[in-house]
């Protein structure tokens, strides 16, 4: 009899846990966006204070160095392309840019995402591109709250995007890039495609952005495909400031 009572009590306990969980899940799923925005209204000033307190000179310099490396890596490529396009097409582009501080980044967050201190109030919208170092595209805005925004990096596991890998003689090779996490990405190309370490990876389109560099080419003997391993223009673990741009508008 005592065992039956205990068994009944256990079942009630389990049912209670499931019931509470299901109610919470339903309510939270319905109001996820609003609840997230409310939470970040409270967290944003706390994390901003934390960043200002913990930012040592070394960390600041490392962050600036990372941004400078990203800017230098793509500057020559974009400068030449810019001159060529302006001359041939007679088109100019205008982009509104919003500077944003990084509130949360890996490993402070378990996913390849960033939380920025700019949101709907600053004109940020879902789908906006996020740049590091002023030029390298590192991700897109996926969720916008009143004063904060969540960005998913191009290197996030499960994320894929189309890109172009530069080859010799100004040729490009279209690839499908898959995120591997922590700033790493990979793509497969036919064996003998001629991609070398250091090749630039850019988004397709006339006003596209630089999204990475090939860091390793894995070519196995007898295989039909080679695997390219790439890195984002900037190390997401060291980012402190990024720029948010609207999709390109040509004039």
């Amino acid at each position, binding site marked *: 009899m005592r*065992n039956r009572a*205990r*068994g009944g009590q*256990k079942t009630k*306990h*389990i049912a209670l*846990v*499931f019931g*509470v*969980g299901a109610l*919470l*899940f339903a309510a*939270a*799923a319905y109001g*996820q966006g609003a*609840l*997230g925005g409310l*939470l*970040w209204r409270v*967290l944003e000033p*706390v*994390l901003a204070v*934390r960043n200002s307190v913990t930012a040592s000179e070394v960390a600041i310099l490392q962050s600036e160095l990372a941004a400078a490396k990203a800017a230098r890596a793509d500057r020559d490529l974009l400068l030449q392309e810019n001159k060529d396009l302006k001359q041939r097409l007679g088109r100019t582009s205008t982009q509104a840019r919003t500077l944003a501080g990084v509130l*949360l*980044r890996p*490993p*402070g*967050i*378990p*996913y*390849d*995402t960033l*939380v920025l201190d700019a949101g709907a109030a600053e004109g940020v919208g879902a789908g906006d591109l996020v740049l590091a170092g002023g030029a390298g595209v590192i991700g897109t805005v*996926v*969720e916008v709250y009143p004063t904060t925004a*969540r960005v*998913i990096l191009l290197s*996030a*596991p*499960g*994320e894929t995007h189309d890109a172009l890998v530069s080859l010799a003689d100004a040729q490009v090779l279209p690839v499908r890039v898959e995120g591997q996490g922590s700033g790493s990405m990979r793509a497969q190309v036919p064996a003998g495609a001629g991609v070398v370490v250091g090749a630039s990876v850019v988004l397709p389109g006339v006003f596209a952005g630089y999204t990475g560099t090939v860091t390793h080419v894995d070519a196995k003997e007898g295989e039909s495909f080679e695997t390219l391993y790439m890195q984002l223009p900037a190390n997401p673990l060291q980012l402190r400031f990024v720029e948010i741009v609207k999709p390109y508008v040509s004039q």
Partner: protein
Amino acid sequence: MFRNRTVILVSFLTTATGFLAGFWPLAVFGVLLATVSGHWVTAILLGFLLDLAYGAPGWLHYIYFPLTALAVVGSVLRVVIVGKLRKRGGDTL
């Protein structure tokens, strides 16, 4: 009662420290600590707050709240395991 409050406080502080220090494993450890010690309300609440802050990108989007789900599943498992141990006459956890 004192022990319960201590565990809840330690779980909350561990999660908060992990979040503020920018080290997510520590934050998740706080949730697991509350789960394993049987404080399922605290565990679910902490998991829920972390899910709101971290989001759930990629395939985790289909779970909506992965850390909350982890806390719920962990709490259920704890109840089942403790029940089985009690049946065998083992020491209480």
